[in-house]
């Protein structure tokens, strides 16, 4: 079985190195994160395949969100957060001092746990990103971007008559799809999703999951989720984090039917401890 099992604290074994995915969209090697004195991530080696959904699972505080935030350098904003190791997007080191973090975030979009539309109109929510990146030459072009983004997020038909109304007036699920539309409006290559459905009801969740399946054709998606069923439903690759270590990663099907590591097994079968 094509599997990478990492014993706690072990360096990347040759077996794992050989598991590196050819032409991976993003690669990370020996990624460590410190919050002040506390180390939150230990030597994470993970490859993110292009145009697939990769799910990061694990108990609370296992470092999966921390890892996700390393990928678009969102951790830069947090004081006392130090990231070491090597993370590459298409072979380019994203922690290179010469790299512009704003441009990086335009290439790697993010959707957050709680739907967080700007307190502006639906239109302006979508148009904000393209506007600051100078993506549209005029009103017509901007209208096109807004419509396309909303269509891709499956929200166009629900909001096309009320684009001028505030985005905060939508339902939770609609708000989250608005946030996804906002993220794809700047044409990112990778979309990071940090527990995007944890605040939504099952129907809204199902819509987002279906959307992710459609978006997979054009984008590389990385999702952090607490719902193992969700990870199983939407992802092609799954990585299990525990206590700051990447314990196991591989094909979702294999992780959920026959995980290699006892910790993974314990976590996904609800036995932990």
């Amino acid at each position, binding site marked *: *079985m094509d599997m990478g099992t990492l014993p706690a604290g072990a360096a990347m074994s040759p077996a794992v190195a050989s598991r590196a995915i050819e032409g991976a969209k993003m690669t990370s090697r020996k990624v460590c994160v410190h919050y002040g004195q506390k180390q939150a991530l230990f030597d994470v080696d993970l490859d993110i395949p292009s145009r697939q959904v990769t799910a990061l699972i694990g108990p609370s505080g296992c470092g999966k969100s921390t890892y996700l935030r390393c990928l678009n350098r969102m951790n830069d904003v947090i004081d006392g957060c130090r990231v070491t190791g090597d993370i590459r997007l298409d072979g380019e080191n994203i922690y290179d001092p010469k790299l512009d973090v704003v441009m990086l975030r335009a290439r790697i979009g993010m959707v957050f746990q709680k739907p967080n539309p700007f307190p502006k109109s639906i239109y302006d929510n979508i148009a904000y990103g393209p506007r600051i990146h100078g993506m549209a030459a005029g009103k017509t072009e901007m209208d096109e971007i807004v419509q396309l983004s909303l269509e891709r997020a499956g929200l166009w038909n629900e909001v096309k008559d009320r684009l001028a109304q505030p985005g905060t007036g939508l339902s939770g699920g609609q708000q989250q799809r608005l946030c996804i539309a906002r993220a794809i409006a700047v044409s990112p290559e990778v979309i990071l999703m940090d527990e995007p459905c944890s605040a939504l009801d099952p129907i809204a969740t199902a819509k987002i999951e279906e959307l992710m399946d459609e978006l997979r054709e054009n984008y590389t998606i990385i999702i952090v989720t607490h719902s*193992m*069923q969700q990870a*199983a439903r939407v992802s092609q690759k799954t990585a299990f984090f525990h206590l700051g270590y990447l314990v196991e990663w591989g094909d979702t099907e*294999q*992780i*959920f*039917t*026959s*995980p290699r590591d*006892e910790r*993974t*097994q*314990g976590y*996904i*079968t*609800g*036995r*932990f*401890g």
Partner: protein
Amino acid sequence: MLNKQADHIVKSFDEELKQLNNIIAEMGGLAEAQLDRAVESLVRRNSDLAAQVVNDDKRIDNLETEIGSLTVRLLALRQPMAQDLREVVAAIKIASDIERIGDYAKNIAKRAIVLSGFAPMKPVATIPRMSRLALTIIKDVLDAYIAKDAEAARAAWRRDEEVDEMYNSVFREMLTYMMEDPRNIGPCTHLLFIAKNIERIGDHATNVAEIVYYLVHGRSLDEARPKGDTTNVPIDG
């Protein structure tokens, strides 16, 4: 490794899985007894015992139905993952294999009733040897299932070859009997079917062994299944 695993956080889940194991064990025990008694009724020419065996098959069928509803309930309510999922799926499959074993035992018993009307025949002696071997395989496989012991399952699985070889020898023996005296053809055909049934029981036992191996390791037994049954070749030609 796996049987030492910690309990579930939700205790009733553990209880339901244990119940699943118990029913499988009970089914297995019943199937063993059925086979044993069916062969005994054949050897002793005891039609009453054979009729009882035919009658008792319903109990195995009922247990299989019980496994079916319990697994569906587990899947719907607990959404088992990984090992638990494999356990549930294994239970369904093992239950259906055991149910088939039960059916074969019933079939042997039916034929024993018919055979009791014929004169006793010599090759009948080979049948109990074959059934004893099949019974040990079933027993070992079920023990392996209860203990979640993949190696024991694999060892039992290898021994199916012996059953197949025995079947081959019974097959050849029957052919000679039938060629000797065409009047033997009737009872010999019955005996041949009984031998074939036991051979199939062995196959189902190996199926169970494979399932146990998958249940423990999460992957199938990668070697090719040992094939001792060469009778296919001349017959199907």
